[in-house]
């Protein structure tokens, strides 16, 4: 009898285990405050808290993984993970290969940052992260583009004089400028590009996309999302 009970319990447990859907989220882990690897070695930042909340509301069991920015879309397509949550702007070009949920961060202005306020960005190389809307913008506007695999390196290029300016999300640059003791400063006016930040899913995963969309809608409706944005981006962060 005891044995029977044990087996039943085990079966019930394994059935429960199998029915809970595990969704793997992937992020870059190098784009604070959107996403970062914290000092404990875990994924942290705005998107960590946001992603966990979305999973809770959509009743999904989520695990986090990190992937290089450069290969983040191909690895989604080959099924290594199910959702990209990596500060990825929704663009028409990306929509051709993957699908996006609705945006969970409004279209943000991108900005130029140089060593001095009168730096002439048009004159010299402008650094940007590879395969980003910013890199595309720099290339289209005829400036000399210097691409780097990680966001940190794009800023380091300005610090060591390799590039005259860096062009990136102003939300990413703001803390760096504020804490640089005057070594970095915003140059010129911000430029609005991109269609907001969304979660990337495979085009065949419409069901998952629907669940995530519903969760984001509810987070926008009850103001949770705005509170999170305020917490990570400060008063300058754009709200819904």
């Amino acid at each position, binding site marked *: 009898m005891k044995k029977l009970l044990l087996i039943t319990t085990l079966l019930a447990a394994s059935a429960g285990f199998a029915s809970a859907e595990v969704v793997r989220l992937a992020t870059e882990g190098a784009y604070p405050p959107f996403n970062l690897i914290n*000092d404990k070695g875990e994924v942290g930042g705005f998107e960590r808290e946001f992603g966990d909340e979305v999973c809770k509301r959509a009743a999904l069991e989520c695990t986090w993984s990190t992937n290089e920015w450069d290969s983040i879309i191909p690895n989604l397509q080959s099924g290594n993970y199910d959702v990209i949550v990596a500060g990825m702007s929704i663009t028409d070009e990306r929509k051709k290969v993957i699908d996006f949920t609705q945006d969970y961060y409004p279209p943000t202005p991108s900005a130029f940052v140089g060593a001095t306020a009168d730096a002439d960005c048009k004159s010299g190389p402008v650094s940007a992260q590879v395969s980003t809307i910013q890199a595309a913008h720099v290339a289209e506007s005829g400036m000399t583009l210097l691409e780097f695999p990680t966001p*940190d390196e794009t800023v380091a290029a300005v610090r060591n004089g390799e590039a005259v300016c860096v062009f990136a999300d102003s939300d990413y640059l703001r803390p760096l400028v504020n*804490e640089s003791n005057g070594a970095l400063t915003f140059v010129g006016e911000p430029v609005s590009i991109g269609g907001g930040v969304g979660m990337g899913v495979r085009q065949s995963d419409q069901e998952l996309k629907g669940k995530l969309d519903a969760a984001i809608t509810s987070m926008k409706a009850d103001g949770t999302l705005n509170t999170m944005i305020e917490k990570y981006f400060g008063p300058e962060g754009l709200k819904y």
Partner: protein
Amino acid sequence: MFAICADPKTLEGLTWLGCYLTSGKHLDFYMSFVTVLALLAVTAPAAMLLGFGGAMASRARLAPLRWIGKGYSAMVRGVPDIVYFMFFVIALDQGIEYVRSRFVCDDLSAPVFQGMEFHVCNAAKVPLATASPFTFQAYGFFLAVVTFAIVFGAFVTHVLSGAMQAVPRAQLETAEAYGMSQRQVFRRILVPQMWVYALPGLTNLWMVLIKATPLLFLLSVKDIVYYARELGGTKTSAYAYSHPDWRLYYFLGLLVFYLLMTKVSEIVLTRVSLRLSKGQATAAGEAQRRGLA
């Protein structure tokens, strides 16, 4: 890790540094050195085995076997490593998942390749989505070992078949004159004597292998170069321990590590070379004999 490190923002000086260097992320960094050493320890023998097989195949009397041996070495050596690491690994991963899907999936009607997307049912995913992060790391490590072994095995094939041809014909002929079979000649004369000729080439490969370990990063195995770049980058107050760009110091650390690795290897390999030359009909062996006499 320690109780005093609970609130890093209030720490200063050496305490801060001590806490910083023992943060969870730094412990991961230290572990990644073990990963790299483990990779070397597993890959080197695996590549030697593959290479030995390849060298034997490329001298085989059976033509198809010979083609396999020669083709393997020519093809892999002719393609840039990075292509292998980008393409071969994805192909291997998808191959494993494809084969597994044929056995474990209930519904096989959906096509596996849908445009750019690769689809197998959840049960066929390797590792399963429910697996621990460690399993994912271990799987990446396994893919890395296989890829490294195949790439370096091809170079070893070439080195060993060259070494086999360098063994003086007179040595083999003498053995034949003693009535040894082909197999006995190979085992007793050719193989023991070829190492001394193979060693310079193998030493080279070992050094290249040590330096190639940062390619691990392409396979999303977090290696020492990944951590050096990640830890060294400018950290704003979004992190518990903020600091300016310290990549220089981290990379200096890596420089010391790699130099130590190559120096130790050089010392060991010089000894091995001396040991192998003993009693050989080469200049080095002859010098040793005279020195002893």
